[in-house]
């Protein structure tokens, strides 16, 4: 297992050191001893790619899935872009990994054909054996490994006809399922290395404060504490156990100086309001004339939405292992961007990348937090300063207070309506940091459409949170769309289909989506949910969104109990091209839906004088089992197209679907998150 694996320096063309090993590429290792190892190239953060990516290789390679083992690959120059983000792992690697598997399959066939002196075209593979049907002869991959290793690697292998797929599209249990349920060491927090010290780090208690005087006398007296080191703007206590490191850190006396403005959430929102009252100089999109359309319109809707800052909250608090020694660096820990970590460490320590190795274990959630390199870089700096191997452990408070948050936003939506139609759509948004952008599918469906976005500079850091941009835009756009439908007295589903038909047949400007694919998921969810029927005591909301290449439509059924929504069922239709692992895919969709409901309902981050108020789960409230939907039914539109994204797409539409269901139940529009606060 790779937890204790110490890596050799990998060069561009690593040769097999053992001639009984067949390693045609970085992804496959077949031994004469019968072992078959597949290397999963992208970080596993709970999105299932440690299982689904090797499945693609295994399908073309023709091995028995029950007889292979999988390891997470280290950062390896032969493996391209090894990141977890943008719902890009499966869709980025589908064809590549099929080719990888097919390459090895052809070499094994060639080796068998040579041995039998028959044409390769008369041979097939199944379950890790090459078969010559005519003569009934079979050879296992183990038996062929040594011979196959001597052959030329084909550059253009033939890929299987997808109709012959035996593994892709089936339900496959997560490759680590047994290890997870038996508590085996799997995560960064479980890292143990010879000679390592545990470290806890004291970081600024508020954004805008920097490190001043440090008194470590009391800390050094704590039993188990071995060292205290300063790195840029932080102090690390190193000890022989996590608890001793924590006690040591608690005993530090540190002066933190306010060197920048200490910001407040209340001020952010006050500023948002001022910014939204002024039109932007350059709208992101401007079709027709939304202002003219509003003049003399039968009705104008004008609605404002407020969306809070969110933390990532992955269950495994950040941690990272680093050993800087003799001009070399070994890095091991949870990151979604190992190459970026290595580059930044190289830069900050002045050590060439060729002298730095990095790999990651399974990770207890990502959600975009680990697209930032800070936890890995920090560990390297501490190891360099302390001159020993170090395992840095963050507490939950550290994690909550040192994040790159999902930015707070405010949106203003205006629509002009005639008696029975939508005349114009004007969305204007502002967010902390890089600001907002993106269009609803309404863009392209109607003559008058304007989208404007602004950003508010802040020293509170922002980053990427599951489905960045879409996780807020879909809520505001699909909530507003529901208000439009109510005002026009149109069925929410029928009106979407009307708009999408217009987008297809009378497209205004450019559209970046396929109206037919939107229709495919809407039609499917209508069928699944029997949209149009009513169950007594239950109320429905609908929403649909396209992101990361995939189309999603959802129906939420709620009951109201004591003024609070109980989600009875969610129906979700997805068009994501070909599904690789049906079980994992369904899990991702269900998980995205629960994630979206959780964050629509309960948590928020508040800055007061630059400090995060919600320091742990007693204040930053998460959804619990009693709040979770009783049922989530997922169906995928049948598709032979290449896979599109699936880690994120089912999240964006759920907040609006829920808000729209609550409106149906109560007549109250929820225009501010989190909903639980609005419902009292």
């Amino acid at each position, binding site marked *: 297992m790779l937890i204790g694996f110490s890596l050799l320096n990998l060069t561009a063309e690593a040769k097999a050191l053992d001639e009984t090993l067949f390693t045609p590429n970085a992804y496959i290792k077949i031994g004469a001893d019968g072992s078959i190892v597949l290397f999963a190239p992208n970080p596993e953060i709970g999105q299932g790619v440690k299982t689904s990516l090797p499945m693609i290789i295994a399908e073309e390679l023709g091995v028995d899935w029950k007889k292979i083992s999988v390891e997470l690959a280290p950062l390896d120059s032969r493996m391209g872009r090894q990141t977890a983000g943008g719902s890009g792992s499966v869709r980025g690697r589908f064809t590549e990994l099929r080719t990888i598997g097919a390459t090895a399959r052809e070499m094994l066939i060639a080796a068998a054909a040579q041995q039998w002196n028959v044409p390769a075209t008369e041979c097939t593979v199944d379950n890790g054996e090459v078969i010559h049907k005519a003569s009934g002869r079979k050879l296992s991959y183990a038996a062929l490994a040594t011979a196959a290793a001597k052959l030329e690697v084909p550059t253009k292998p033939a890929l299987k006809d997808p109709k012959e797929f035996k593994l892709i599209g089936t339900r496959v249990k997560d490759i680590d399922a047994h290890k997870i349920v038996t508590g085996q060491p799997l995560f960064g927090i479980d890292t143990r290395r010879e000679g390592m010290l545990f470290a806890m780090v004291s970081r600024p208690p508020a954004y805008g404060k920097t490190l001043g005087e440090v008194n470590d006398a009391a800390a050094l007296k704590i039993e188990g504490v071995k060292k205290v080191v300063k790195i840029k703007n932080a102090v690390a206590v190193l000890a022989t156990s996590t608890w001793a490191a924590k006690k040591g850190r608690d005993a530090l006396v540190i002066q933190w100086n306010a060197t920048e403005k200490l910001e407040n959430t209340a001020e952010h929102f006050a500023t948002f309001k001022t910014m939204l009252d002024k039109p932007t100089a350059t709208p992101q999109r401007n079709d027709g004339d939304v202002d003219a359309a509003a003049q003399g319109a039968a009705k104008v809707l004008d609605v404002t939405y407020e969306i809070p800052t969110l933390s990532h909250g*992955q269950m495994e608090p950040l941690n990272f292992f680093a050993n800087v020694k003799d001009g070399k660096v070994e890095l091991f820990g949870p990151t979604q961007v190992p190459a970026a970590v290595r580059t930044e460490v190289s830069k900050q320590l002045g050590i060439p990348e060729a002298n730095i190795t990095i790999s990651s274990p399974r990770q207890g959630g990502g959600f975009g937090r680990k697209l930032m390199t800070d936890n890995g870089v920090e560990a390297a700096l501490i190891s360099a300063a302390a001159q020993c191997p170090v395992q840095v452990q963050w507490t939950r408070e550290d994690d909550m207070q040192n994040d790159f948050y999902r930015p707070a936003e405010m949106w203003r939506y205006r629509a002009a309506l005639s008696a029975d139609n939508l005349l114009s759509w004007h969305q204007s948004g502002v967010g902390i940091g890089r600001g907002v952008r993106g269009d609803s599918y309404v863009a392209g469906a109607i003559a008058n459409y304007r989208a404007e976005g602004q950003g508010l500079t802040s020293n509170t850091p922002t980053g990427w949170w599951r489905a960045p941009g879409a996780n807020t835009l879909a809520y505001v756009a699909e909530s507003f769309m529901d208000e439009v439908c109510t005002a026009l007295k149109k069925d929410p589903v029928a009106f979407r289909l009307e708009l999408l038909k217009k987008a297809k047949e009378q497209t205004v400007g450019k559209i970046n989506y396929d109206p037919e694919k939107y229709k495919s998921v809407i039609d499917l969810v209508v069928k699944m949910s029997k949209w149009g029927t009513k169950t007594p005591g239950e109320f429905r909301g609908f929403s649909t969104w396209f992101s990361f290449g995939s189309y999603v439509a959802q129906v939420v059924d709620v009951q109201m109990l004591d003024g609070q929504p109980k989600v009875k069922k969610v129906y979700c239709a997805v068009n994501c091209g070909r599904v690789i692992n049906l079980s994992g895919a369904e899990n991702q969709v269900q998980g995205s839906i629960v994630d979206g409901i959780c964050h629509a309902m309960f948590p928020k981050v508040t800055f007061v004088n630059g400090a995060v108020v919600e320091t*742990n789960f007693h204040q930053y409230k998460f959804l619990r089992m009693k709040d979770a939907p009783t049922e989530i039914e997922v169906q995928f539109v049948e598709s032979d197209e290449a896979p599109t994204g699936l880690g994120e797409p089912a999240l964006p539409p759920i907040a609006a679907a829920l808000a729209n269901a609550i409106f149906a139940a109560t007549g109250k529009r929820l225009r501010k998150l989190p909903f639980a606060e609005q419902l009292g």
Partner: protein
Amino acid sequence: MAIINLNVNGKTLSVDVDPSTPLLWVLRDHLNLVGTKFGCGMAQCGACAVHLNGNAVRSCTLPVSTVKNNAIVTIEGLSEKGDHPLQQAWEELDVSQCGYCQAGQIMSAAALLKRNPKPTDQDIDNAMSGNICRCGTHVRIRKAIHLAAKTSKK
């Protein structure tokens, strides 16, 4: 630091630790039992759930000095072969996504099934609401508990 004797997974073990150390960190850092996880440190998330005389407790806020010789069972000791009905159900239904919270979920569920072999959905809500899953596997967790209840032999 003091020598403390503990009864963990049926064995008597000795550790030399600060008596105020939470049981969680004694298990993880001193007894090499890393299946029990750290999620919050204040009994809000359930990742640290272990059994103390059969009851699910939060090891992150339990000073090791208070445990005495009460029987502790961790995820590693829930079954000899990793085949507790819950572990089997969890695998059969492919519950886990990232997997980090699942040991704690299983320990909470195991304590539930021990005192209530045929729990209703409401019983599951009550017993499992102390455990957070950020990945959102709740629907499968619920199904797995029902499945384990069905397949459990009395």
